[in-house]
């Protein structure tokens, strides 16, 4: 019997026991979040998570927030172990630093679900499932949106674009850029990505970067931003320079400001990622794991493309 078979057998046994308990009484799920309140996405996520838990009478939740502080998150994970929660959901503040604490939870027999942003690969063996968006696919889809638009305009063979990425060193930022940069040459081999600079998820920073791009390059046909907040910053810079008409703006994580700019016809497209879906997916993944279902390790929820053409199918984002 291999180690992993033994492991899964042990887990299954534990889960059957847990499942039996769950049928009789409610399950307790603890969550420690990254930094609620730092942005609207995380705030909406928390509200949706609590709302989803309240709708299910068999679920008790312990909701904690690390406030962006990795030391506090580790302490919270240890607290949740002490409280003997049935499952734990973690939104890592730092994909590497939380691994020892995740291992402790694993050793205590508590299934761990990572939500939104994954931990580093060294920690995968202690985790039951990752629930969240697939950022590489998001980047790839943004590249497709950009390419499809250029093809419609007939400039797919000469277009030049710039990229504004998120916070350097942040997994989401790296993965989106990677997905975009890989996919773009596959769909539009003649489009040139002339330069990438970080906008740090910050609209003002992004606006400053775009101003410099506009000075530096006389010909920019498209801007890909790691999220719409930065995308709108870039759009503002182009509007001020009177060059917004000639540029296709594509982002990710459709924000309300991005949605509105699309409605005004100034911004072309984005990726629709709902924090409500994100939160509900995390809770459901935890429940599925506890119910002993076969949950894939990468349990992505879908984040579709949104453009001016199909935006009527989507509600205006709440953040």
């Amino acid at each position: 019997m291999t180690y992993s078979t033994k492991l899964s057998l042990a887990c299954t046994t534990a889960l059957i026991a847990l499942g039996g308990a769950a049928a009789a009484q409610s399950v307790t799920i603890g969550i420690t979040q990254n930094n609620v309140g730092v942005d609207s996405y995380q705030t909406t996520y928390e509200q949706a998570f609590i709302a989803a838990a309240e709708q299910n009478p068999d679920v008790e939740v312990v909701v904690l927030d690390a406030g962006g502080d990795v030391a506090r998150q580790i302490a919270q994970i240890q607290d949740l172990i002490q409280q003997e929660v049935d499952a734990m959901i973690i939104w890592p503040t730092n994909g590497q630093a939380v691994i020892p604490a995740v291992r402790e939870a694993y050793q205590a027999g508590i299934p761990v679900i990572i939500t939104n942003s994954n931990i580093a690969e060294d920690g995968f063996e202690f985790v039951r499932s990752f629930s969240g968006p697939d950022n590489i696919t998001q980047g790839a889809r943004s590249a497709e949106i950009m390419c499809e638009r250029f093809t419609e305009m007939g400039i797919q063979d000469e277009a030049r674009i710039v990229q504004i990425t998120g916070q350097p060193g942040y997994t989401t930022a790296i993965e989106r850029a990677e997905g975009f940069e890989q996919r773009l040459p596959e769909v539009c081999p003649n489009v040139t990505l002339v330069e990438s600079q970080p906008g740090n998820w910050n609209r003002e920073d992004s606006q400053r970067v775009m101003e410099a791009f506009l000075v530096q390059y006389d010909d920019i046909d498209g801007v890909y931003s790691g999220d719409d907040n930065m995308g709108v910053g870039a759009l503002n810079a182009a509007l001020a320079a009177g060059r917004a008409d000639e540029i296709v703006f594509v982002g990710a994580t459709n924000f309300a400001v991005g949605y509105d700019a699309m409605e005004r016809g100034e911004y072309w497209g984005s990726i629709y990622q709902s924090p409500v879906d994100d939160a509900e997916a995390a809770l459901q993944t935890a429940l599925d794991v506890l119910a002993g279902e076969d949950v894939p390790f990468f349990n992505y929820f879908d984040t579709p493309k949104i453009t001016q053409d199909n935006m009527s199918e989507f509600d205006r984002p709440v953040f």
Partner: protein
Amino acid sequence: MADTAMKSLGGVLARQGILVAFILFMVGFTLWNPRFIDIDNVFGVVRSSAILGVMALGVTFVVIGGNLDLSVGSMLSFSAIVVLDLHENPAFGPALAIPAMFAMTLCLGAINGFLIGYLRLNSLIVTLGMLSAIHGLTLTYSGGQNMDIANQNDTWFDVFGRGSALGIPIPVLIFALLAAILGILLAKTPFGRRVYAVGGNDTAATFSGIPRARVVFMTYMISAFCVATAGLIQASRTMGAQNTVGQGMELEVLAAVILGGASLLGGSGTIFKTVIGVLILGFIQNGLLLAGLEFYVQFVVTWIIIILAVWLDIATKRGKLWSPIA
């Protein structure tokens, strides 16, 4: 004759080392990429430096007065969020939102000023505490949500960040006007001399009958006023704000002030030099961006250049590249 001219030129250079450094950078970057000196780019840089610059003007008073203000970054987030929220509130609208935001931000400055001026608490601790407290206050106020102006075409609010008069961007005009007023206040008035006196020697100033507490209090009020102005420009420029928009700016502001030559120990510095410090920071960031350097490299190079500039400044003052006394 020529010798005297050289000497007096040397004398001027010795007093304006930071200005020399600034001119050297400008020439260097222009040689690297001629677009650097393009008028649109220069205005662009000064416009985006205006936010940092206006904050630095206020912090210059605090630093010359012998104290620190680390709360300006989160205070900026606060003022930007508040003014946008009140702008969207039908009971206020833009005309009332702006004075209301100034009043609220000045209250925060008054707390700083009271604790440090009248209660004589350590400014590092107080403003470090206020950095987090104000951040919490902003998050509580906004409920963690971003603020955005919904109907951007129906308001004149964008004039402070995006407008221009006589071909000059409004943020640049605000920065220049405020620098002129505060420069005169600091250099030419009894109040300005008291700020230097308190920062230079607190005890001596008190014994000479200078109302130390009131002077320190006022420096924090000036700082808060500048932050509120910067918050207004910021909010108007982006027509929206995140709760973290000013995060980390306190150190950039302090860097600009120190780069300008103000002493962290208080008692020295001028508004003009702070303006130069701000412009050096702004132009370095822009120049490296135009040079197309990778971001991580830019980060390293920026701070190497800043340290070089400080060295050049000190070296011209000493007349030697290194200190004879180790």
